[in-house]
């Protein structure tokens, strides 16, 4: 097990966001976390990244307890996140955004290699490397956010709603890229409202409902599960 979440409780003041969820991710997997708006998906990712401290519970990664670490140590440990809504630095250039992604790394020559491979994966970013990130289109910003996370050379990549606000053609492209990133050895935890797309590329999935995991299993099985089809795939 690469990442193990145990009995995680998170509250925002009096509001409970997560009431004791447990799940795990194995090395090399794509795991999807699906569920409706407000189910606690983003909260889970933000807690793994250390932006939120849980009230109770633990997160184990390679023998470390992540809930005690500040966000930058978690990135250093090998977990990077592509946040919801891309969150590129709008007044910095594409290049500078990518450099920020490699912030914890000191190996100049290898950073250059990573940059090359990001540009190879996203040729559009190379064309626009001197442009301010705020002027990119939504799809390009999503690519930049993903490229930026890749610059950290993560073992685990957390993706929060990568399909949000993108045209169907682009969504397909982004999901193909996610799959490809996974095949080059990066473990992926994917949070999505677009359950259909998420299940189509994942190995396993967990279904979150108001702070609890209500279903889990292999992605292809969940895609055929009656309950999931009704609630999240919009089929009768």
């Amino acid at each position, binding site marked *: 097990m690469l990442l193990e979440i145990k009995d995680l409780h998170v509250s925002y003041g009096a509001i409970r966001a997560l009431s004791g969820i447990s799940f795990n991710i194995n090395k090399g997997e794509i795991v999807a976390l699906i569920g409706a708006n407000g189910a606690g998906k983003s909260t889970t990712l933000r807690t793994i990244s250390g*932006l939120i401290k849980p009230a109770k519970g633990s997160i184990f990664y390679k023998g470390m307890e992540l809930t005690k670490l*500040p*966000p*930058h140590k978690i990135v250093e440990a090998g977990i990077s996140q592509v946040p919801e809504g891309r969150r590129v*630095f709008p007044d*910095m250039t594409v290049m500078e955004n990518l450099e920020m*992604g490699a912030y*914890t790394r000191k190996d100049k020559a290898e950073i250059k290699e990573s940059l090359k491979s990001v540009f190879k994966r996203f040729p559009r970013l190379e064309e626009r490397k001197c442009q301010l990130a705020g002027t990119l289109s939504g799809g390009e910003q999503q690519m930049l956010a993903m490229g930026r996370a890749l610059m*950290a050379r993560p073992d685990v990549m957390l993706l929060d709603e990568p399909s949000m606000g993108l045209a169907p053609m682009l969504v397909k492209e982004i999901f193909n890229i996610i799959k490809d990133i996974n095949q080059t050895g990066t473990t992926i935890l994917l949070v999505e409202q677009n359950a259909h797309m998420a299940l189509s590329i994942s190995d396993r999935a967990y279904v979150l409902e108001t702070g609890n995991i209500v279903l889990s299993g292999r992605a292809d099985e969940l895609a055929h599960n009656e309950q999931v089809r009704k609630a999240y795939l919009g089929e009768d």
Partner: protein
Amino acid sequence: MFEQQIINGLTLGSVYALIALGYTMVYGIIQLINFAHGEIYMIGAFTGVMMVTVLGQGFFGSIIGAMIVCIILGVLLERTAYRPLRKSTRLAALISAIGASIFLQNAMLLWKGPQPVGFPQVINDAIYHIGSIEITKIQLIILVTSAVLMALLNYIVKYVKIGKAMRAASQDYDTASLMGININSVISFTFALGSALAAAGGVLVGMYFNSVAPLMGVMAGLKAFCAAVLGGIGSIPGAMLGGIFLGVAETMGVAAGLSTYKDAIAFTLLIIVLLFKPTGLLGKPIQRKV
């Protein structure tokens, strides 16, 4: 006459700009008006005096010593007065800033007394003539030093790794930490930069007016704060522009016979600019998150 006033205004304005930069950089990252910033400037001026009188240093020793002392002071100030309140309301940190300001003023009053201290002469009073304009050596030094420091700051923020991290943190605090940026060290670095610039400003003004006093930071701090807001708080070029603008306007006002209202000019200008452009000259429109 007009050109002469421009030179005088630029001299004063570049010092306002040096102080204003500290306000604007800190605000850019933690949205706090560091009201103790004027006191850092004052302590910088005192340190400058002591570098000359106690350690026998010249101009460079004086300014560099003041910068080092103020970097330490600024970083300590953030650690003790602001960091523990980071997760509290912004008002709590603001009150803490005002408290720190009053504390530093009174500590210096206790130590040095209320009387202004003269700045020992380290720069001779040579005067240069360029056409009809007269420029004193100290004016020239203020202009050159400020320009060099601002260029250096610009370089750090644009090209140095931690400077880029400052910009990232000011654009998106949470996402910056998701990049692996240690936000605490970025904040410390920001305080260090701002305090160093304020210290340089303090020493330059101390030499210019040949006077250093424990309450000198109050009015200078307020005006530099005005300059920062005028230029657009959070914007580095804005603080530079705001400072210069204010310095020139004040000098022009005095030359036009308004010397009684000298200190009112900055605040009047601030009100006028904010009426027409609430985000300041170079400020960005505030984006509200949905």
